[in-house]
């Protein structure tokens, strides 16, 4: 800060004369005459001088002596108005009398210096600004001639300077040329080579804050203030999201082969697998968590959803089937590799026959050579433009992909073909109850092609072929009927979860409304008739799930034969009656789409079905054609932030932040920690929370690994004391033999110790890495390491979760809970009952949802802590008791930081002083030390669980004030060991109460923990 101030001051004083003083060493110099000539004649000016001036004077020093010989007393002029005395003042003894010549010379020098200072403008204002108001004229800054003549020269110079400073146009085309369609397309195609653009990118870029994430340009949040409006849209109306960035993997092959290959990657423990009956028939979309083959419960790859292509011949397992796996882009690399390994698909299929779309390849090929040419010369550019004028097309799909990179792989042994269909389809998500009416209003089923219409000119041959088949026509009619029925259903939540409906629709641009309006459910359709009831009961029949979007050839042709907006508008303008319905007849495109019902909130008791909606799959190239009609029917667009809010209110984990055990989650946590650390460091220490004093060990990332390990050792340490629950045996058989209540002899207790010590030793370096992570987030370890080598896992076994969720609630909380427990065959919560669970998942995390009892809104990385006995007593006495406070911790690093700073200062002084070379080795070791940051814990973390006054159980990953519930809600992970230990200790009436404390606050607040299935 002071530096900037100095600079500003120096700039201001640039033209001011400097102080002129005689040498101070007069007495010492008196005797030594010769020395003085070379010495500095004049003290470095102290006031009002800029550093460059000083350097100038030192540079100037050498030529001085010989000059000084010529003139006995002489005053030199400095360039910038300052002036300096010759060395005469010191080299000669002070005379007893003043000679007139020296007197006059000194005066003359001063006059000239002052003259210079006066004539030059001192401030950094423009020349015409120095003029008084009444002398100013219009356009003085442009036209030099309007200034008084004495100032014209200076203004001329200034104008030249300004021209230099102005940024030169980097574009070699004029504005008009840049706006021309062809060039714009070229430019857009070039710009989406680094990060993939969705088809709706331009639309989003105008209305959203766009972030570059996961190799895509994605809308983060709308620029308008719309947090609450988006929530209302989700609950009452319709929120539209472009999820086209989701990746799709296609597996083609025999059904049994695919199932055999994929079955080791998923576990029946976590729910339904790929072989679920409903999903296998193609009737429903399934979702599951993928694991590395045979590695369950470790080695999580991530959550996916999948659809089977509806089979034509039921019961035939050897028939060739098609399976689409949809996944988040961060998980794609790992899952693709694993699936490839599982299916033994190693041979890449050469791209030429297999690339499903020939369209982007030519445009890619043509635009690529054209671009480098542009920069070379104008002549060539023009020629290229001429050639390119016609074929330059909008770029659809993945622009970053190397055209020669294989997209599909085949296995010789199993015959499975895996292809990567990323960006080959658009996926739009409509959330909210109005999505039905928006869909039914925006989309109209394609008209069936009649015999006798002229078929020669139309490019949509596939539809004509289809229409010749009466079965296909009747299927289309049935799909249309069901789609019409959807309009009468009030909420998508009423439809069975994951229902798939195929459809072929006409061009949605044709019946675009004139103005943006809100589609409202038609009350006439909402009659509770028999058909609707049947649809709700049975779901969409299997046949109707069929769609032509599964066939690449059809998709290609649909993408290629899309009539452009320009042509469509041209035709519209040629209508006889302006504004009437445009009838294209057989030329109208027929687009195959797939509608997939997205279940909303499936877990928990309250608000079931909240946030349900429909996903629309479209062939590529049609994104904007569908997007605008949806928007025009009253859908509100949301970005990534809205997706996060949606998943939070739905209480479902968000990819990738809520998967701490998969590599994408680890990577995400690291990046986030880095970002937060940067942000934290940018604030001055007094204006940011001192996390050490608050007792927050890891404010920026959650040390899951250490948390689970610490809980394990904590529980083990407690086992030694009598009365605690018995130590864990090595295996289940050992434990089964022993009577649980009997305090066991020493032998089995040693066994786990022995088993654990080498384990922990082996984990040594990794543990170090993990503990480093919060303080020095930059030094965090490899992303893949966690997934491969650690014991950390997230509990996803449904049986175990069911058990836990029953234990979590207060056991005397109501008759319902009491009834449920025996009905489900649950056991009571006893330490013994926990043992099998702990044995199976030694270091597991449990996904929990928390709702605050009173005030407070939790934020991410809030700590979940175990309440102490006295907290319960206080709460029992006072219902409105907020919660305990964390006492202030001492900051052991503060003195260290101060010492380091002092050391640095000393070094700096040394460096400045004698020699720079000597200072360097001294500074070496200090640089090697990690730089401490005030307010952050540095070095390996101590025991995270017992650092604060309340034992730490876990961390919150998503948390906010929930508008759906009306109180603070959070989602997070807790250590399984810790949770069971806590629950065992808590009195039955208050079971499931925990404390939440945000990282930057000492206040604990009560919350109720729940595990939802």
């Amino acid at each position, binding site marked *: 800060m002071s530096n900037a101030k100095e600079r500003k001051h120096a700039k201001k004083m640039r033209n*001011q*004369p400097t*102080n*002129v*003083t*005689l*040498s*101070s060493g*007069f007495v010492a110099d008196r005797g030594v005459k010769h020395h003085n000539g070379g010495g500095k004649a004049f*003290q470095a000016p*102290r*006031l*009002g001088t800029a550093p460059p001036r000083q350097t100038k004077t030192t540079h*100037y020093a050498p030529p001085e002596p010989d*000059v000084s010989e010529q*003139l006995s007393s*002489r*005053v*030199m*002029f*400095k*360039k*910038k108005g300052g002036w300096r*005395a010759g060395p005469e*003042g010191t080299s000669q003894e*002070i*005379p*007893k009398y*003043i*000679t*007139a*010549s020296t*007197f*006059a*010379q*000194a*005066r*003359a*020098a*001063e*006059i*000239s210096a*002052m*003259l*210079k*200072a*006066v*004539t030059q403008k*001192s401030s950094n204002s423009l020349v015409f600004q120095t003029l008084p108001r009444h002398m100013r004229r219009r356009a003085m800054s442009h036209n030099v001639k309007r200034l008084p003549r004495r100032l014209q*020269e200076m203004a001329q110079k200034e104008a030249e300077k300004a021209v230099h400073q102005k940024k030169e146009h980097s574009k070699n085309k004029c504005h008009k040329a840049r706006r021309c369609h062809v060039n714009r397309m070229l430019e857009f195609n070039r710009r989406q080579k680094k990060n993939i653009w969705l088809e709706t990118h331009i639309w989003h870029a105008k209305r959203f804050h766009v972030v570059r994430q996961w190799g895509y340009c994605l809308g983060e949040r709308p620029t308008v203030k719309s947090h609450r409006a988006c929530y209302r849209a989700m609950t009452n109306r319709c929120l539209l999201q472009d999820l086209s960035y989701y990746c799709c993997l296609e597996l083609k092959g025999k059904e049994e082969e695919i199932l055999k290959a994929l079955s080791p990657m998923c576990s029946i423990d976590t729910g339904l697998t790929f072989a679920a009956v409903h999903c296998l028939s193609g009737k429903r979309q399934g979702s599951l968590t993928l694991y590395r083959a045979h590695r369950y419960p470790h080695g999580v790859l991530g959550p996916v959803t999948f659809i089977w292509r509806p089979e034509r011949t039921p019961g035939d397992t050897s028939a060739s089937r098609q399976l689409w796996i949809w996944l988040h882009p961060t998980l794609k690399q790992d899952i693709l590799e694993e699936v490839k390994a599982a299916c033994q698909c190693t041979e890449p299929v050469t791209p030429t026959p297999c690339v499903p779309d020939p369209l982007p390849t030519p445009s890619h090929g043509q635009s690529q050579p054209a671009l480098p040419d542009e920069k070379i010369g104008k002549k060539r550019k023009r020629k290229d433009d001429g050639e390119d004028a016609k074929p330059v097309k909008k770029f659809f799909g993945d622009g970053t992909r190397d055209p020669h990179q294989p997209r599909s792989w085949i296995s010789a042994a199993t015959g499975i073909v895996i292809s990567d269909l990323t960006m080959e389809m658009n996926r739009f998500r409509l959330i909210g109850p109005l999505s039905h009416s928006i869909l039914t209003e925006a989309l109209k089923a394609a008209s069936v092609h009649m015999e006798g219409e002229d078929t020669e000119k139309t490019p949509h041959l596939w539809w004509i072929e289809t229409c010749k088949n009466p079965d296909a026509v009747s299927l289309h009619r049935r799909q249309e009927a069901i789609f019409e029925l959807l309009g009468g259903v009030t909420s998508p939540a009423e439809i069975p979860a994951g229902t798939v409906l195929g459809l072929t629709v006409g061009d949605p641009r044709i019946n675009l409304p004139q103005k943006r309006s809100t589609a409202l459910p038609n009350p006439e359709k909402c009659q509770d008739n028999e058909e609707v009831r049947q649809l709700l009961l049975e779901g969409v029949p299997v046949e109707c799930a069929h769609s032509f979007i599964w066939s690449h050839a059809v998709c290609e042709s649909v993408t290629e034969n899309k009539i452009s907006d320009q042509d469509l508008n041209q035709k519209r303008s040629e209508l006889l009656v302006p504004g009437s319905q445009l009838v294209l007849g057989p030329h109208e495109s027929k687009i195959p789409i797939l509608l997939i019902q997205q279940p909303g909130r499936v877990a928990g008791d309250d608000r079931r079905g909240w946030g349900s909606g429909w996903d629309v799959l479209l062939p590529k190239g049609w994104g904007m054609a569908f997007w605008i009609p949806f928007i025009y029917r009253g859908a509100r667009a949301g970005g990534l932030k809205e997706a996060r809010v949606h998943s939070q209110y739905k209480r479902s984990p968000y990819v990738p932040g809520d998967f701490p055990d998969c590599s994408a989650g680890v990577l995400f946590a690291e990046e986030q920690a880095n970002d937060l650390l940067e942000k934290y460091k940018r604030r001055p220490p007094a204006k940011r929370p001192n996390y050490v004093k608050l007792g927050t060990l890891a404010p920026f990332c959650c040390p899951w690994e250490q948390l689970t390990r610490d809980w394990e050792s904590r529980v083990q340490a407690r086992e030694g004391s009598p009365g605690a629950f018995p130590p864990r045996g090595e295996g289940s058989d050992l434990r089964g033999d022993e009577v649980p209540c009997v305090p066991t002899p020493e032998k089995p207790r040693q066994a786990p110790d022995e088993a654990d010590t080498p384990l922990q030793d082996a984990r040594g370096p990794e543990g170090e890495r993990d503990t480093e992570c919060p303080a020095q987030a930059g030094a965090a370890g490899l992303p893949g390491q966690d997934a491969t080598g650690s014991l950390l896992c997230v509990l996803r076994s449904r049986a175990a979760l069911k058990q836990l969720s029953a234990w979590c609630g207060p056991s005397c909380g109501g008759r319902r809970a009491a009834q449920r427990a025996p009905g489900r065959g649950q056991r009571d919560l006893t330490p013994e009952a926990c043992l099998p669970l702990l044995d199976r998942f030694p270091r597991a995390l449990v996904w929990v949802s928390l709702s605050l009892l009173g005030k407070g809104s939790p934020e991410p990385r809030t700590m979940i802590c175990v309440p102490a006995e006295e907290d319960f007593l206080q709460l029992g006495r006072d219902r409105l008791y907020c919660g305990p406070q964390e006492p202030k911790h001492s900051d052991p690093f503060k003195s260290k930081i101060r010492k380091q700073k002092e050391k640095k200062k000393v070094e700096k002084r040394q460096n400045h002083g004698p020699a720079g070379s000597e200072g360097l080795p001294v500074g070496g070791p200090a640089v090697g030390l990690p730089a401490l940051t005030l307010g952050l814990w540095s070095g390996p973390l101590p025991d995270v669980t017992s650092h604060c006054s309340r034992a730490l159980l876990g961390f919150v990953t998503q948390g906010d004030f929930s508008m759906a519930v009306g109180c603070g809600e959070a989602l997070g992970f807790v250590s399984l060991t810790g949770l069971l230990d806590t629950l065992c200790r808590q009195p039955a009436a208050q079971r499931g109460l925990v404390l939440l404390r945000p990282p930057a606050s000492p206040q604990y607040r009560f919350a109720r923990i729940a595990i939802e299935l």
Partner: protein
Amino acid sequence: MVRFKHRYLLCEVVSDDPRCRLSLDDRALCGLVRDTIARVHGTFGAAACSIGFAVRYLNAYTGVVLLRCRKDFYQLVWSALPFITHLENKGHRYPCFLNTLHVGGTIRTCQKFLIQYNRRQLLILLQNCTDEGEREAIQKSVTKSCLLDRESGEEELSDGGDEVAEAME
């Protein structure tokens, strides 16, 4: 305009002893004036004047000094200046006094005044001069001070200002 308004006192250090000029530097002068104000006006005066007080320009050859202080209390400074009788620096004490030439609102007016003043001084010197050699030297310096006025534009244009300065001599 919103700014702190200052007063600039253009003074001349007059001393019989030429060695006084040697010890004239901004820090010494600053301390001297401050001490005098404290002596004359007490603690209040010292505190009132210490805000924004600075030595903006100092020329040991001519003894010209430019002092800056806030407009509200410049009279305290001004009235204290006659009480300066000695300049003390590095253990040496030289008798001297300060002669206030001009009080201005900006540095610029003070500079303008200084030009006028110096010119007048030179002319007086020239008129009173009797020695022929001296007279020539004074004339030379007078023309030099005017020369710069004319050639300042040229000097600005050429980068090597030092050479120009040498050539002028």
